[in-house]
């Protein structure tokens, strides 16, 4: 198992938005997807995920709908809104810029 790492709150938002940009998922699905994409390095706490989801829903970046899963259970599916898509772009740009700056600093002699 890869090392678990701590995430800033802002980055969790960005990751969730990225995951949802590929399609709508419910909360459990998002957890699974994040674990999968990060090769089990990222194990998101429910205590962080759901408040983040509600917060982002409050800000209008994602919207929710109750649907039936494949196993015929009711679950709340989240998907990106147009504002969410724009937010994702913004955050991605910001993240890229920040990592470039940090890399530059770290690699200087």
């Amino acid at each position, binding site marked *: 198992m890869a090392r678990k790492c701590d995430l800033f709150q802002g980055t969790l938002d960005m990751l969730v938005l990225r995951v949802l940009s590929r399609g709508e998922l419910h*909360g459990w699905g998002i*957890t699974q997807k994040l674990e999968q994409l990060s090769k089990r390095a990222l194990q998101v706490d*429910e205590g962080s995920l*759901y*408040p983040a989801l509600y917060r982002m829903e*409050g*800000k*209008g970046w994602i919207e929710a709908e109750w649907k039936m899963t494949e196993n015929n259970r009711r*679950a*709340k599916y989240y998907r990106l809104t147009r504002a969410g898509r724009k937010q994702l772009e913004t955050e991605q740009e910001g993240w890229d810029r920040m990592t470039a700056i940090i890399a530059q600093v770290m690699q200087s002699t």
Partner: protein
Amino acid sequence: MTFLRCISRRLRHLFRRQQSEAEMAEEMRFHLVQRAADYAADGLPDEEARFAAQRKFGNVGGIQEQAREAYGWGWLERALKDLRFALRQLIKSPGFTLLAIITLGLGVGANTSMFNVLNDVLLKPLPYADGMQLDAIYRTPGLNAVDPLEGGVSPADFLDLRREMGVYGEIAAYAYANTSLSEPGQPAEMPRAISITPNFFAALGTRPQLGRDFQVQEGLHGNDRVLIISQRYWQNRFGGRADIVGRTVRVNGEPHEIVGVLPASFDDWRHLGWVDAFRPLGFDTEKSADRHDTMLRLIGRRAGALSRAQAESFIASFGARLATDFPEANAGSTWHTVPLNDVGWGKGATPMLAMLIGLSGFVLLIACSNLANLLLARTMARAREFALRSALGASRTQLLRPLIAESLLLALAGGVCAVIVARWAGDWLSVRSTADNGEAAAFALDWRVLGWALVASLATALAFGLAPALFAMRLNLNNTLKGGARGTTGGRGHQRFRHALIVGQFALAMVLLAGAALFIRGLDELNYRRSGWESEHLVTGTVILPAASYPDADKITAFHRLAVERLESLPGVASASISSFTPFFRWYDSRKYVVEGRELPERGREPAAVVNGVSPRYFETVGTRVLAGRAFNERDTLAFSKVFIINQAMATGLFGNENPIGRRLNQPGGSANEWGEIVGVAADVKSVLPDQGPVTYQLYRPMAQEPRARNEIAVRTAGVASSALIGDIRTTITGLDPDLAVRQLQPAEATIVRANYAMGVFRDMLCSFAVLGLGLASLGIYGVIARTMAQRTSEFAIRLALGASIGDITRLVLTNGVKLALIGSAIGLFGAFGVSRLLAAAFPGMHTNSPPVLIGTTLLLIAVALVACWLPARRAGKVDAMLALRAE
């Protein structure tokens, strides 16, 4: 767009709370199940899988809390929860809650009802369109300031003003004019009427609701046989009939046509009084030139462009021009304007109102002290709970929140109670202030009053709810927690504070009681003052002879003679008389006199006397004694020389010890044949009204020598009750002239009591305040004594065990209470003196200083305190020593 969606989502969460919560729970459950399945798939047994999933999930409750925060209604939910908790606490102690609400309601209610009266009488603007543009224009003759309602102008001056007014706007005039109104088959009436210029209603911005306004040509003398009536008169007298416009009635004996009915909104009593009928004001050529009869009152509506200052200077300069152009009529007079909203009958009641508001403030203070005591005791009883919560980590705000919530709820309930009390008071006042024509001042509650009630109860409840709470904060945690399970009474400091409150309450109650008692006594004395007349077995009424049917002295005298003759021939009548004024009210005819054979005093400094014209048998009818000389007889008519009768004060003042009989008087500047001989001296006569007027000399002249149209009829009955004769008297008068109405034909006693009616209402209000204050104060002292004595049960038990008798204990408790009451009364006595001074200033002529009354009030207060302490005292004495000591 997203903002709207955000709001809608929040609202949805707020209103469909249960659904949101259920959804959240279901979402969490789904997640848990999936994770458990995941673990199970990894090989954990089912139970283990579930536990592991739950552990991983963490604090579900915490997550839900955070989620709820994200929806942003957290503060509201917390507040609602506090309120619900407070409600439960209040319901759990119904006695306290009820007492607190009633106390708050009565205190704030008394205050609110006085504010209601203040609002209706003084604050509400008059119901005229664009009231800010309206002014009252009045004239001050000479030196002393004159009330704008009294400062009339003469017709000639008014016509000059109208000619010169230019761009002022609109100026209208009116004059009070008594009229009789009759229809065939119905008895004649005397409605209150004023004569107005045709532009009067237009200037005020009112239009008749039926029919039309007066037209300009109807302002000319001779064209003025038209009438406009008020809504109230239409309903009361004419039964609201639909064919009112165009109806003909006889006014002062002549047929007039009713051309319009005013809207109900015009019935504001504050400006003109309750006027029922309006006639056009028309001057004949003689009257138009009259510069002396200051009968007109003026109203001006400024044109939009004209400012108040410009209007004032215009009027003032007009007045100055008049003074120089016509010195013998207008020398020394000045003209002024004042906003119409500042003028009104209510203004005269300002001292009474101020006193009432002050006294109701006292009642409120007493109620507040009660509330403070109640809440303090309650907080002390919960001191241990506060100490515990504080020790468990509650912050100050968290401790204060339930207290604030409780105070808010009490304030709300108390405010509602106060509004109900104010409503009752308003209704009662409306009934009591019904005027003779059936009109009542409606004291309706408007938003100002409701707002005041709410603000006052909020302020009171918060101030007196928080203060005990702040007390609680200061408690030493350790001592409180250790101090036994029953809660504390508080230390010496709290005890002293409570006792100080009681003393204060009794001081205020003393002031209220004393004020009421002094006023009652003063008013009674006024109403039953019999100074110079006998009002038992006497019937009086007012008759006004219209100029059209009685144009000259002969006609009037003939009527007088016939009337007296016919009245005296009625069975049960001992004597009848006609006079200009009754002895029990003020005489308004004031003239100056000089004595023959004496050096003329300085011009303007001649002695003045009020004059009453009377018929021959006046003195025996009204019961004024003739002390020397003779009364008038049938020979004292125009054909013979003038005679006078003067009162004792005038005789002593003008002649000292000399005999006034035979001396002669005349008015200064009067012609030679107007000297009149003094033929008799009568007793002094004092009116029942508190204000006697400045002149004490009274002079009588025979009615026949100067007949007047305004007459007071007096009939003395013998052997029958006065009320039985009223019908006969009225029939006699209408038999003489069917167009004559007799106003207020009733026993003299009724008229006298009615005259001081307003003061009777004032007295009732003072009494209710006093009773209220006393009741609240006694409740207060009962509560405090009961509580402090209950805390001392163990002490009493020990005393009893050591040999004290029940009487000793009872006496201990009683002395405690009575001591507080005594101190309070002593302090209150100073306040009582102050109140009697105030009453004397507001009602000159009423005797308000009375030591027996003050002593009586003190005794009453002490008796009430005794009664209030009696119950706790008995309970204290009945303590079972063993039980009390063991119940520690």
